[in-house]
């Protein structure tokens, strides 16, 4: 029997969350040790005897039994979760209490508790995302470092610091406390949004790493949607946005491993199921008075996802959505995307004009796509030398081999176009 994709990773998040709930957040390291133990045991037995019928249940039962051992052995030496202590002290209540804490619905709540706890306000957004990846998604330090294109040591420091903050918070976040839940929800949504974007726009050269991040973000957003207080229009909009973008994920790299822009992607390969799922979430998001940036971004992604060709895209609608987004969450990148959409609608000269008119253009000086967009409009205007210059500037900012190849390809396209024009100019004479 083949284990399903990323079984260990997924179960790692579930086991750590359940065990931390029992041991208390100050014993997070102990919970992680028990999980590590469970994996070692699985490896020792399964490698020779094969996988059991239900490997997830096997792992969880192993973790539960280890938890019982630890609770019995150390109940005088350690304090565990304070709110559970009266159940854990006596042998009469210990086993039934632990049994109860390992039921499926209890674990679902534990995952949410952990998600909210990882988004501690004292942690930076990067630290929150790294913590979610490690604790909830079961990523190793090396895998997180690969996702962020960062060194092992730097990520390890970031996570160690973050865990100290988490362990010092005394108690896991209480997901039944309505007011606190509502107050922290935007931070959690933001962390999931950043997790998704790291996968979608991130610098990692590994396509598989990036797809993993996107799918983890979707999984966690769906988990959030299962909680009555988490199921807000903004969460639905966020989930919709993720689905629409993820539907295009596999076509962003073509068969020969090269980056493919929105204009060149094989749209027949876009995932219709994810688009349909996104549309369901988009419907759910259309309630209540609040229009969030997630709503607008989801709407933009929906317009792209449902356009048959780049030319048939409703660019006018996209421009007006970007206008809206600029009001809700202004940023130079949003302004650039609006300018690009205008260029699509009204021609390359107008696009160029709009980009040059951006008020905080200097803040895009390190943004590869700024130069790439200018290059594209210059190329389409037939100003090949200028186009080449812009693509060269973009090339200097390339973060991985794929971006490198893509931009080199654009430079070659400029050279070819220039050569063709001079040939036809000679022919005209």
């Amino acid at each position, binding site marked *: 029997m083949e284990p399903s994709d990323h079984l260990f990773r997924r179960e790692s998040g579930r086991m750590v969350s359940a065990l931390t709930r029992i041991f208390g957040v100050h014993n997070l390291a102990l919970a992680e040790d028990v999980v590590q133990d469970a994996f070692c045991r*699985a490896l020792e037995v399964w*490698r*020779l005897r094969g996988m059991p019928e239900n490997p997830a249940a096997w792992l969880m039962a192993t973790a539960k039994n280890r938890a019982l051992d630890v609770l019995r052995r150390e109940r005088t030496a350690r304090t565990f979760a304070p709110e559970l202590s009266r159940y854990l002290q006596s042998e009469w209540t210990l086993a039934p209490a632990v049994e109860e804490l390992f039921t499926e619905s209890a674990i679902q709540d534990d995952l949410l508790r952990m998600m909210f706890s990882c988004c501690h306000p004292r942690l930076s957004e990067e630290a929150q995302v790294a913590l979610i990846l490690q604790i909830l998604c*079961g*990523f190793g330090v090396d895998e997180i470092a690969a996702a962020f294109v960062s060194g092992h040591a730097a990520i390890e420091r970031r996570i160690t610091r973050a865990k100290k903050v988490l362990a010092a918070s005394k108690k896991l976040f209480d997901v039944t406390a309505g007011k606190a839940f509502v107050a922290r929800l935007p931070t959690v949504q933001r962390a999931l949004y950043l997790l998704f974007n790291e996968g979608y726009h991130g610098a990692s050269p590994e396509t598989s790493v990036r797809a993993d991040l996107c799918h983890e973000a979707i999984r966690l957003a769906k988990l959030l949607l299962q909680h009555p207080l988490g199921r807000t229009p903004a969460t639905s909009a966020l989930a919709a946005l993720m689905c629409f973008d993820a539907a295009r994920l596999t076509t962003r790299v073509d068969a020969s491993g090269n980056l493919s822009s929105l204009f060149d992607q094989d749209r027949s390969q876009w995932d219709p199921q994810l688009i349909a799922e996104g549309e369901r979430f988009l419907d759910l998001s259309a309630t209540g008075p609040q229009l969030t940036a997630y709503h607008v971004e989801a709407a933009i992604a929906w317009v792209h996802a449902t356009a048959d060709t780049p030319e048939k895209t409703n660019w006018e609608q996209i421009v007006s959505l970007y206008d809206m987004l600029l009001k809700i969450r202004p940023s130079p990148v949003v302004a650039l995307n609006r300018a690009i959409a205008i260029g699509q609608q009204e021609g390359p000269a107008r696009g160029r004009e709009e980009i040059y008119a951006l008020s905080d253009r200097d803040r895009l000086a390190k943004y590869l796509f700024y130069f790439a967009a200018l290059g594209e409009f210059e190329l389409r205007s037939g100003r090949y030398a200028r186009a080449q210059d812009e693509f060269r500037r973009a090339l200097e900012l390339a973060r991985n081999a794929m971006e490198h190849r893509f931009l080199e390809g654009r430079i070659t396209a400029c050279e070819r176009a220039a050569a063709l024009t001079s040939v036809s100019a000679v022919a005209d004479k």
Partner: protein
Amino acid sequence: MSEYVFLYRGGENGHSSPERAQQTMQKWMTWLTDLAQKGHIKDQGQPLEPTGKLVRGSKKTVTDGPFAEAKDVIGGYTLIQARDLDQAVELSKGCPIFETEGAVEVRPVMKLNM
């Protein structure tokens, strides 16, 4: 065909990520499935607990295991069929244990009728 025992020593890397652990396990299953399909598995063997007791001497003194350094502890065994020791050794080289700094001890099962 003769019989050989593969004794797996060490190689449990306790600090790999869940993904890495899953990949390691998949490699083991692929390797053993392949050996089985080629008719080399006499008995797929058993995993062994890393701890136990050691009973020793005329006084039958009982001490706690483990009896060796963690890297040398035998974690399990498989009974293999091979043409000769050379072939058994060749077969052992596909074992994923080497990726996690473990070892395979290849021991011929003694033949009774010489």
